[in-house]
């Protein structure tokens, strides 16, 4: 799973974690007002703004430009493995359901060709400090195939050998051979991420993902035994048939397992976009009030268990390097989540993968045949993209500060871009005013900060600064509801 936010280190102060524990009292009218569709800001501008006139030639030009920066950024590779053995109904990722493992070999061959085409665009002194294998289900590949993939990447890119490199892999515990975990470690992976979502059997049945507590705990233990530096567990709130009591039990089990990091994502029900979601009965979904209660429960339970809210949907133990980096103001975020590494140029490989290189976003074809045909024709498979304007860059920075830190430091933005914040964002500030009245955001001379209730509606706050959204009301793309 690939998300797309790239953010600088927090400007001045670390997020106010204490405020996360406040009780949030939402009245019904407020809920109705703000429970509306909005982008998740995994990138700004968001993917609907990408266009097909940005292709391989444009991407190459942007890539070559990044080589010419005084200190070219290190590289980050995202490799998408689209195959899954079984469909989870909530899934909004790009994936192909099959039990036919023979499909992996030709896919890997084309991945290697893609790497061979793209890698020469980047100077060899640029180290790859992050590799993330996402999906789909990366453990659809055999350990031997994963080894082969890593060797192929090593042949085309300079993979970092430093101890602090981040090589991570998403694993599905239901199809995991525990004996294979040592092989993943031998390939260089030291971070694993497992989907849990909810242990409540009723919910698991409703989303077609039946995964026992035991399976999950065994996988976590095997990673620790194999020397993995960090284990992450993903949870989702807002799933069908989910209850506060059931989710509370899940949170108890998860916190007792002590994963280094926990992500709590909100379920976005968009069956018109994600076919799998049509299997979910709308009437089984929790209402907005319950969704908020579930989120509040997660925040309270994780805080009580000693987890630090790193930002947005991510939590970490206080001795995790993310928490340490946050204290040291050296935390960054990129499309693979939070990281202690400086910003990278992000290269996405595989079907539907998104790249963020220089001031550009680009995306590979979402359908497998189109991706395959491009590669077979010797074309870098770029489907669509966007060259960011200066205004996009400024707004992206503000939106990402909001999404990751819940606050924008005005002086930092003014200094960075030589602007007068109040003038540059005059329209945004007008749009922000009613949110301040509703107690979602506070604004003083120095900063704009989400209140404790506003932190749960960061997308609404960020939308005020979105020029694409506000400029083109006629052709609005469809977004999920914000709560």
């Amino acid at each position: 799973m690939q998300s797309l936010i790239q953010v600088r280190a927090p400007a001045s102060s670390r997020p106010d974690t204490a405020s996360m524990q406040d009780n949030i009292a939402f009245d019904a009218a407020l809920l109705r007002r703000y429970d509306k569709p909005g982008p998740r800001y995994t990138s700004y501008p968001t993917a609907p703004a990408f266009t097909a006139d940005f292709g391989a030639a444009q991407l190459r030009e942007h890539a070559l430009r990044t080589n010419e920066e005084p200190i070219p950024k290190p590289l980050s590779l995202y490799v998408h493995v689209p195959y899954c053995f079984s469909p989870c109904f909530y899934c909004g990722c790009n994936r192909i359901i099959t039990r036919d493992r023979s499909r992996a070999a030709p896919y890997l061959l084309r991945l290697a060709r893609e790497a061979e085409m793209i890698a020469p665009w980047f100077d060899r002194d640029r180290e790859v400090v992050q590799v993330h294998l996402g999906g789909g289900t990366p453990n659809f590949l055999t350990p031997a195939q994963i080894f082969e993939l890593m060797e192929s990447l090593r042949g085309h890119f300079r993979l970092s050998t430093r101890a602090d490199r981040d090589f991570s892999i998403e694993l599905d515990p239901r199809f995991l051979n525990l004996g294979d975990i040592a092989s993943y470690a031998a390939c260089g992976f030291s971070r694993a991420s497992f989907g849990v979502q909810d242990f409540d059997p009723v919910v698991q049945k409703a989303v077609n993902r039946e995964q026992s507590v035991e399976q999950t705990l065994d996988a976590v233990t095997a990673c620790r035994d194999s020397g993995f530096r960090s284990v992450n567990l993903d949870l989702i709130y807002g799933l069908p048939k989910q209850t506060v009591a059931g989710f509370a039990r899940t949170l108890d089990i998860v916190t007792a397992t002590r994963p280094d990091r926990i992500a709590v994502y909100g379920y976005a029900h968009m069956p018109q976009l994600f076919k799998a979601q049509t299997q979910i009965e709308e009437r089984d979904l929790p209402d907005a009030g319950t969704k908020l209660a579930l989120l509040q429960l997660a925040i309270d339970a994780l805080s009580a268990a000693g987890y630090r809210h790193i930002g947005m949907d991510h939590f970490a133990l206080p001795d995790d390097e993310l928490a340490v980096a946050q204290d040291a103001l050296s935390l960054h975020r990129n499309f693979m989540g939070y990281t202690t590494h400086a910003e990278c140029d992000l290269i996405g490989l595989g079907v539907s993968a998104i790249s963020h290189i220089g001031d550009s976003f680009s995306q590979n074809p979402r359908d497998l045949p189109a991706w395959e045909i491009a590669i077979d024709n010797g074309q870098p498979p770029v489907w669509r993209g966007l060259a960011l304007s200066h205004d996009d860059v400024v707004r992206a920075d503000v939106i990402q500060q909001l999404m990751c830190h819940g606050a924008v430091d005005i002086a930092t933005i003014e200094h960075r871009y030589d602007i007068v914040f109040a003038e540059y964002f005059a329209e945004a500030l007008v749009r922000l005013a009613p949110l301040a009245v509703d107690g979602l955001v506070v604004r003083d001379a120095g900063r704009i900060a989400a209140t404790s209730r506003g932190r749960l509606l960061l997308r609404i706050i960020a939308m005020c600064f979105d020029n694409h959204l506000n400029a083109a009301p006629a052709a609005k793309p469809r977004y999920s509801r914000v709560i």
Partner: protein
Amino acid sequence: MRTVPIADDGDALKFCSTCAFSSACLDQGYDKSRLGELHVLVEHVGPFAEGTHLFREGDPFEAIAAVRAGTVKTYVNDSEGREQVLGFFLPGEVIGLNAISRNTYPCNAVALDSVSLCRFSFPGIAALAARMPGVQQQLFKLLSQDIGKAALLAGNYTADERMAAFLVSLSRRYAARGFSPTRFRLTMTRTDIANYLRLASESVSRGFRRLQDMGLVAVDRREIELRDLPKLEALASSILRG
């Protein structure tokens, strides 16, 4: 990220803020309209897009030009066809001076970003210099600055010293034209900087990283902030000598 320095454009009467000759002319009591009477052709040309050649080696020499906006790189190709970067010209600086002694340009000049120029007919400015000692002095000063630029390359200096001298030189030149001495955009590529300083590209990046780790500079893509100019000047002092 921020706007590239651009000269405050003059008009028929007023000189551009970065004009290489305005102070000399004004000191002599000439405003811009008088230059027209003296048939000194001053022609604003451009903007030229990034990558446009403004002149090439061997082109007939007719005019010198002051940069009004953008950055110009001059270079030659050696006998093996390898590019050798000679220099970078910022707003207010004059290109083509090294052609004065011959009838053709001895190097290539290319726009590194959007470049606007102010062209002076050379015969015209030479005639003006003959009448006006101040303009002549200014011309000599520009010529000697052009020669002085080569000092960065000669000599047995460390990579850090070269890098510091390069940055301090840019800083002083921007400051002289009224732009920020501590924050500017590096319009030249890493390859060009490396070529100019006779270093490998990787060494340029390592040098920037070292200066950044020492707290002397902050680098954000092509944006440079000089955080400790005195220390950079100290590091550059053996090359720049004041």
